[in-house]
């Protein structure tokens, strides 16, 4: 069990999300509070529709909550405006999605360069190249996403997520669109990099086996943290 350090890098307090569906309020998340310490690996587990992807989106500031708040590395996420949250993500956060979300117009290299350039980091090209080499895609840098297999696309996404050396990595069902063997390779790679770079990992999944590779599991059911 990882020891919990004094300052949590993620702190969620009373997070609530409701949506209006034709006059009736649908509660997706209700009063969710927890903390994630720096360097920790946390899995958020739950069945489909339990609200886990919404929770991840709120933690990353990709959507706004109906009530409650999130602080990342001590900064109150929703006190910032949209651009302020983007700047914070550029500085601290990496992302891995279930459906890879690579930009189709850009080559593998350009996709990895993008967050480096957005954060204004010098030498983006060299760093992106090194990162792609690290995930074993040195020969595919000039390829476009549609020329890559699913596993390769997810490896590009992992390279992109780690390129800026984020303190915090959010992963949303990273193996959901991959077959079991490829998924296992991708997960191994993600945990390897996570260890190398001492990144804090928040992973959303419904896969019990995968969640057990994380130090802590949070279970979400009907929008509430269970247990």
């Amino acid at each position: 069990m990882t020891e919990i350090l004094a300052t949590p890098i993620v702190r969620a307090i009373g997070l609530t999300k409701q949506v209006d569906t034709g006059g009736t309020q649908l509660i997706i998340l209700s009063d969710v509070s927890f903390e994630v310490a720096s360097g920790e690996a946390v899995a958020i587990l739950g069945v489909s529709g339990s609200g886990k992807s919404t929770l991840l989106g709120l933690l990353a500031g990709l959507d706004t909550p109906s009530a409650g708040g999130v602080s990342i590395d001590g900064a109150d996420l929703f006190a910032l405006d949209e651009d302020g949250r983007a700047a914070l993500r550029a500085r601290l956060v990496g992302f891995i999605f279930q459906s890879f979300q690579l930009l189709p117009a850009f080559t593998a290299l350009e996709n990895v360069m993008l967050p480096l350039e957005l954060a204004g980091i010098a030498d983006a090209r060299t760093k992106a190249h090194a990162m792609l080499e690290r995930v074993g895609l040195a020969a595919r840098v000039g390829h476009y996403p549609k020329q890559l297999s699913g596993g390769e696309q997810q490896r590009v996404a992992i390279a992109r997520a780690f390129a800026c050396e984020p303190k915090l990595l959010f992963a949303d069902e990273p193996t959901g669109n991959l077959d079991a063997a490829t998924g296992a390779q991708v997960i191994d790679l993600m945990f390897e990099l996570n260890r190398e770079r001492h990144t804090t990992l928040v992973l959303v999944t419904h896969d019990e086996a995968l969640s057990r590779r994380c130090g802590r599991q949070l279970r979400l059911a009907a929008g509430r943290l269970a247990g």
Partner: protein
Amino acid sequence: MLKWWQEIVLALKLLLRDYRAGELTLLIAAIVIAVGSLTTVGFFTDRVRLALTQQSNQLLGADLTIVSDRPIAGELESEARARGLAVTRALRFPSMVTHGADTLLSDVKALAPGYPLRGEVRLADRLFGDERVAQAVPAAGTAWVDDRMLTRLNLKPGDVIGVGALKLRVAALVTHEPDSVIGFINSMPRLLLNEADIAASGLVQTGSRVRYRLYIAGNSAAVDAYRQWAQTRIGPGQNIEGIRDARPEIRSALERAERFLGLAALMSVILSAVAIALAARRFLQRHIDGCAVMRCLGTRQSVIVRLYVLHFAVLGAVASALGCAVGYAAQSVLASMLGGLIEVALPWPGALPAWQGLTTGVLLLLGFALPPLISLGQVPMLRVLRRELGVPQGSGAIGYALGLAVICALILWKAHELRLGLYVLGGFLGVATLSALLVLAVLRLLSRLRTEGGMSWRYGVANLRRHALGNTLQVVALGLGIMALLTLTLIRGDLLHSWQATLRPDSPNRFLINIQPDQVQPLGAFFAVHGMAKPDLFPMVRGRLIAINDRPVSSADYSEDRAKRLIDREFNLSWAQQPQPDNRIIAGRWWDARDRDTEQLSVENGIAETLGIKLGDRLTYDVAGSQFTATVTSLRKVDWDSFRVNFFVIASPALLRDSPVSYITSLYVPQGQVTMLNALVGEFPNLVVIDVAQIMAQVQKMMEQVSNAVQFVFLFTLAAGLVVLYAAIASTRDEREYEAAIMRTLGASRRQIAATQFAEFALMGALAGLLAAAGASALGYALAIKVLNVPYLGNPWIWLIGVGSGAAGVALAGMLGTRRVLAVPPLQSLRRVG
């Protein structure tokens, strides 16, 4: 299983639902513009055509007229009378009219009693006064003048004016007359007088440009019989016009206007077709899931296709009707722009243009929207489960065959003749292909260079390159719209400027014509008294070309309007010992000055080309009834812009020396000495003084009227270009929203995303502007060299303005069209589109 009427009801329901959801706005806009531009031109030309058929005897002033450039044989008139037909005559010529110290070049018409046989002449006593119908022609010794003469010579009824040797009292202001000229260049102030005064005026002399007209009216059988009889008795230079073929000059002007305005309107139709194709693709993408579900629920493929074909046919009909309404409103603007050129009240248009508009609109929509529609029926049902199965691909270019066939048919129809139609079609395809290749090449080059430069620029270029084909289409379509505007704003001014720049400031600004041989000496003395050098006088003989190499020629041998006119009418011949300094011999040899009895001709090369005359040909001319034949021994190039007197055909002196002759000259009169001209006309009342500046002003005014009309039609082109732009932006909005969301997830600020999109749109606009500037320059060059014969000076601004306005316009439109992309929280975008 749906019954047929249930299918119709369902199709209408789907249509209404799509309309409410805003899915059809772009398609409707594109069709309204296409049909609107076609029917604007259609309604307007229909009104002129109806005016020609319904009012043709008023336009003629009779049921039949014979027009001639020499007196009409008495036999033609007496035969008509013998057949019990009503007959009258008129003759028309240009002449100076004087009032006190003022002189004015005018269009004089002398009327015989009985004029007009059809329609009426209306008179008033002052400007805007009450009109009354004239009961007779002007009494001998009096004149009726039009408003222009009244104001320019500062006249009122009762004033006495001078016409040649005559003094006439102004009896009335003429406000309307049948068979008046169409405006164009002949729009000189008009004066009507009695035929009986002509003999005393001394104005009809050798070399006078007189047009004679015989008017005939009666019951149609008798008129037809007379026409058949007269047909065999008229000679060259004489024409018969009946109510079915009245006013051939208006008909040919109408034909030209219809052709060019129609082709201009087609530009917007073609652009609209692009917009329809783009909008239909987006429609397909939006409806694909619904169709997959419908198929899962048991709807057959053929039913889906039928539902949507019906849906689109109704949409096409409704939008086309809307387009017809727009065209109906817009045609009145066109009529007010060009109506001044035709002095007849235009009747309301018929329904034919509306039917043509409706058919075109529906066919255009089905032609360009059907291919994606048909693929809707082929949606794999499994897509409901597996979205990545994607959109069935249409059959590509073959799928659009119907649409392309509609466009080709429209071009051939609007061009009125196969050859011009094929030229336009070929030209359009050529230009479109060339432009597309150019844009693709530039995109390829830019993507090579995209490792350089800032992030926004590189990602902007990457986005453009990804949809290279689609973006090329948009750039070409936008380029066409911008080109239309550049041509009409910058190029038009440039050409006029180039033309005026070729005129030297001391170029002759007045022509004197109609100088009689006995006036040559006194005229020299007149100039000496007024301290001016005696200008060179050139002999002028009016003759008609009747045979080439002993083979008789008639206007029917030629297809070109200009050639027909040259054969039908007399034109001016001259003789000279030496070629003029501004003439250059380009083939053959000028005659030897020592050989006084040589019989040779020198022909201007332009007219030689028009009439198919070659060096060594033998030309036969009829001069006042006697004929001569001589060989063409040289071809000349003439600098017409020198505004000096020049002749198409010059004979060696021996050939024409004894023919009836008048003289012509050109001279430069400084602004301060214009009053000298009044004295000149006072002393030599038969002289006609032509003011070059005034003619140029008239030409310029006409060019402006016509180009304003074309510009108006091009407004539809611009609108269509904007719809293409909007459709293009709309068709990529989902992608943009998705990509913006990913970029924001990765930490991009709104400004960074906006900058990337700005770079992409501005680059696309700049490319379109570049293409437009190149196209407009090429067009300007072609017009300058081929049509106006002036050197094309070029205009560097056109590149700057083309590229600048293209980039700014598209960037602005693009940013406005995609501003929503930046407003949605990223997670929503990723969920909705991703």
